């Protein structure tokens, strides 16, 4: 599967999360939608790590997961 497909999926997840952050008013659901946006970014990071053949993007994705676990 070409890397572009993964990027399309990550962009759609990010946009769904952004729409949720703006439209929902329950603070808990807003936090969940922020997690969605972080996950979209994570998918893009891992996809680019696969594209370049390096593991640095996966390291970055793990750091993002740590931050998300920190403010949860």
């Amino acid at each position, binding site marked *: 599967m070409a890397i572009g497909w993964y990027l399309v999926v990550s*962009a759609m997840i990010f946009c769904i999360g952004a729409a*949720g952050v703006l439209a929902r008013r329950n603070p808990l659901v807003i936090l969940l939608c922020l997690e969605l946006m972080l996950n979209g970014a*994570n998918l893009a990071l891992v996809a680019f790590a696969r594209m370049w053949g390096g593991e640095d993007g996966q390291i970055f994705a793990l750091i993002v997961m740590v931050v998300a*676990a920190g403010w949860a």
Partner: protein
Amino acid sequence: MLFHNILFFIAAIGALSGAIGVVTVRNPFYSVLALVFHLISLAALFLLLRAEFVAAAQVIVYAGAVMVLYVFVVAYVGGGDEPLPAGGAQFKVLGPLFALAVAAELSIAMLGTALKGVKHNGAKYTLGFGTPAHIGNLFLTKYLFPFEVASLLLLVAAVGAVVLARRRRGLEPDVELERQVRVPAPSYTGTMAEAAGTRTAGTMPAPEPGSVPEPVGHGSAGGPPRYEGGW
């Protein structure tokens, strides 16, 4: 290769439907469950991208620990429908419009990109790409400083959570505890003499004539406040 494509579409549809479920479902508990589904599908996508360790961490840490925490929050706070009252009527329309604009911009950027690698399946990878051995090696050599900063961040978050929970519990917890302990047990309750029935009414400390509490104790109306159980 065909199997890879089928797996990709299954996982991508799962992730997208989970994301849509998080946003659209009214009950916050169900949106947490939809987020768990989304995270597990995303872990499958990570596996397809040869990121084994990230996928395992996603399932264990994210879909396991963090989501259990969210379920607890929903169970304690309770899912009120829309607690924030301030006017968000325009956001309900503008939010999806803004998201559509961002999506259009991102797709334009992706269609017009000059990156050749986007059209291909990715670079050649060495054996053991994305395994815990490689990731741990990078974390302890090249990315040691971000690793330490992340651990410090988690420590600060844990200590801060404990401090906040202590402050929210009450003003002076010791005073409250002392007030509970200092209530004296009324006479003739719970003694061996009461059980044996050897105490007589004459030794009781000045009972009122009308409402003499029975020495048996439980449920005696009008008696002094009693210390009921506890520790």
